[in-house]
């Protein structure tokens, strides 16, 4: 493949970042916006070209005997740690990276376009676009990484762009602390990632994904059976790498940053915290999947964490008021879904269908979750509040938003023929294939998903009209915002029919999707039940929800407070680490170590002051000492002579 296109795909966003970042101050908003959108549009076109060429051209470079090839389009040396352990920067083209190129550029372009309307009156518009470009660059760099270290590099870069974008409204203390929290929590997780890379690369002596995944047995052999605390080193490495993924993908217990990250502008939430960055963890596991297959313990760990997180986030989502928070928890839950699907994948079970379905869900979820977030943005834009208590009955005022939002909700709930149905169905099939417990558990989560999404939908668009509408009539968003909504809604409607199994599978061989009727029916019934329950409770104004809430106030409050995870973290970090640990160290430094050093000085000074008294400058004192000394010497001499 020609390397111009891949290079341009990375070069355009980063140059946009530099141009808008350095020259943005001098530009008008319009120039900056147009430049940003044009840049992203070009990247979109190029990425589509690359992806479609890869998938559909049939070129023997890309597909040989039905096996899709992995190829490093370019791979330049960046930094050599040792002779063998060399960090490259490159562009790896394979099914998942091609798919991610499409996802990222699509969502990013939609968000660029949408932001033109949404952020129109915000100060720092140019800065916003430059940060968006930086993020797009980092995310693209992450997915095309040829080696795990390149992934780590871009991993950190997406972290920082996320930090910058969450803290975009930097004058709000809440945004500042949310951005800080996001960065530090993910940074903490990255520590695990880093140690994992250290371990893995030490034993395998390579960073390269192709070398790792094409020869997983070799990877396993290279550790030479070394163990640490009962688990093999490879398990440790893989689990630690996954910890990095847990941070970025907001798995429990590192999920606390994602709901707070909603302090950022809503399009940013759609791009980063719904569609792209948060799935980096899933992508990471998918990328390393053959190696993970070597250690079932690690996969089990992934599955368990995913299952717990999915349920937890779904429960919490049922009790939130802020619509962006609901969507955030829904995102956590859905990503956990993908994680479980990856975790249950075994080559023997439906030819590793879990992997395919996970990627499929990643794709569809990116589309409909971005749609939902952008829809939420339109709502917030119209109502100027994040809480559904300020909304209600909006379907008449904002028809476009209403319909697109409904499509999004149906898609996420997994109703045929919307996208979510297909991907979720595949995932559930894979889970049932592994163990019925996972399947049942996740089906329940799917039901909860339908419930809380429609709870939100009904509360926002039905329920009863907010009286404020009379003074300030909400209306649909301008075209820059509506176009992305309509486009994404359309994608959500049709993308389920993409023959995904033909394109993306764990062993890159085509896989023919067939709907498992039993699983499909179950999940549809469960979803319909969830929707029905939501409709029964929230369609019209009534007292049932309040009664339910009052019936179990403790549970409601706990779920509303997200089961006190934040408080727990605040306690640990602020009270224990910050106040007790850091302060005592700072105190120790000043009052023990420094005091010791000052003590040396003081002792010296005291001694010198004491001795100084003898140097009184008084001749007479000198004479006394001199004379007494002379007498003493004479006396001693005399005694010796005797």
């Amino acid at each position: 493949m020609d390397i111009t296109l891949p290079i341009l795909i990375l070069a355009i966003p980063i140059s946009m970042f530099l141009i808008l970042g350095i020259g943005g101050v001098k530009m008008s908003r319009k120039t900056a916006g147009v430049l940003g959108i044009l840049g992203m549009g070009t990247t979109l076109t190029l990425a589509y070209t690359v992806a479609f060429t890869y998938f559909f051209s049939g070129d023997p470079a890309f597909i040989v005997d039905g096996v899709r090839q992995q190829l490093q389009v370019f791979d330049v040396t960046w930094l050599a740690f040792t002779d063998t352990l060399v960090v490259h920067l490159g562009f790896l083209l394979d099914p998942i990276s091609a798919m991610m190129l499409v996802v990222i550029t699509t969502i990013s372009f939609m968000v660029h376009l949408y932001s033109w309307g949404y952020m129109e009156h915000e100060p720092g518009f140019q800065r916003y676009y430059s940060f968006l470009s930086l993020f797009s660059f980092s995310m693209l760099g992450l997915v095309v990484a040829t080696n795990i270290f390149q992934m780590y590099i871009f991993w950190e870069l997406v972290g920082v762009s996320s930090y910058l974008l969450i803290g975009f409204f930097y004058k709000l203390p809440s945004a500042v602390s949310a951005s800080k929290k996001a960065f530090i929590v993910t940074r903490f997780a990255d520590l695990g990632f880093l140690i994992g890379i250290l371990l893995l690369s030490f034993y395998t002596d390579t960073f390269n994904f192709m070398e790792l995944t094409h020869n997983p047995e070799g990877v396993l052999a290279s550790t030479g059976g070394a163990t640490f605390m009962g688990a093999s080193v490879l398990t440790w490495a893989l689990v630690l790498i996954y910890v990095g993924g847990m941070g970025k993908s907001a798995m429990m217990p590192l999920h606390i940053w994602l709901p707070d990250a909603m302090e950022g502008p809503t399009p940013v939430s759609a791009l980063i915290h719904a569609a792209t960055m948060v799935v980096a963890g899933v992508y990471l596991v998918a990328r390393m999947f053959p190696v993970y297959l070597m250690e079932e313990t690690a996969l089990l760990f992934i599955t368990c964490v995913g299952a717990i997180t999915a349920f937890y986030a779904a429960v919490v989502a049922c009790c939130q008021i802020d619509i962006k928070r609901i969507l955030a928890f829904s995102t956590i839950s859905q990503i956990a879904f993908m994680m479980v699907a990856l975790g249950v994948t075994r080559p023997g079970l439906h030819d590793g269908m879990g992997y395919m379905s996970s990627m499929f869900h990643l794709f569809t979820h990116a589309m409909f979750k971005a749609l939902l977030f952008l829809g939420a943005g339109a709502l917030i834009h119209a109502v100027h509040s994040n809480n559904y208590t300020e909304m209600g009955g909006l379907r008449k005022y904002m028809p476009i938003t209403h319909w697109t939002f409904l499509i999004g909700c149906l898609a996420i709930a997994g109703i045929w023929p919307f996208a979510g149905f297909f991907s979720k169905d595949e995932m559930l099939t894979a889970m049932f294939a592994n163990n019925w417990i996972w399947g049942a558990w996740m089906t329940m989560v799917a039901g909860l998903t339908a419930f809380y999404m429609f709870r939100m939908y009904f509360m926002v668009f039905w329920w009863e009209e907010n009286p404020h509408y009379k003074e300030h009539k909400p209306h649909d968003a301008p075209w820059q915002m509506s176009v992305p909504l309509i486009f994404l809604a359309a994608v959500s409607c049709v993308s389920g029919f993409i023959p995904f199994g033909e394109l993306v599978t764990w062993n890159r061989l085509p896989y023919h999707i067939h709907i498992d009727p039993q699983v499909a029916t179950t999940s549809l019934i469960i979803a319909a039940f969830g929707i029905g329950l939501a409709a029964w409770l929230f369609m019209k104004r009534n007292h049932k929800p309040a009664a339910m809430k009052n019936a179990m106030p403790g549970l409601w409050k706990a779920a509303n407070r997200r089961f006190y995870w934040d408080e727990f973290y605040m306690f640990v970090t602020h009270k224990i680490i910050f106040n007790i640990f850091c302060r005592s160290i700072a105190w120790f430094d000043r009052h023990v170590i420094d005091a010791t050093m000052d003590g040396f000085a003081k002792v010296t000074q005291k001694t010198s002051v004491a001795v100084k008294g003898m140097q009184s400058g008084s001749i007479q004192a000198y004479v006394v000492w001199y004379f007494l000394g002379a007498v003493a010497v004479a006396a001693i001499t005399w005694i010796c002579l005797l």
Partner: protein
Amino acid sequence: MDLGILWYLVPSVLMFACGVYGFVTRKNLIAILISLELMLNAADLNFVAFNRYIFPGQMEGMIFTLFAIAIAAAETAIAIAIIINVYRAIGNTDINEIKKLKF
């Protein structure tokens, strides 16, 4: 009763001790100088006595004393010049007042 060498040396020692006492205790510069002269004088007396009793045929002790007197004169002259200068500078001749050179 013979006037042996000790008869001269003992007063000399006592005079010297007086000089030391005066030198250490007095605060007036001139008084200190006076004490110094006492000590010098005691030393002179020693030279002379030793010369007379132990080496009566020679005259080193006497000559030494002679020079010592000359040098004492020189020293006194300079010391007094300095004292007068100090007096001009600080208004008295108290040794405790002269602290500018301390440390």
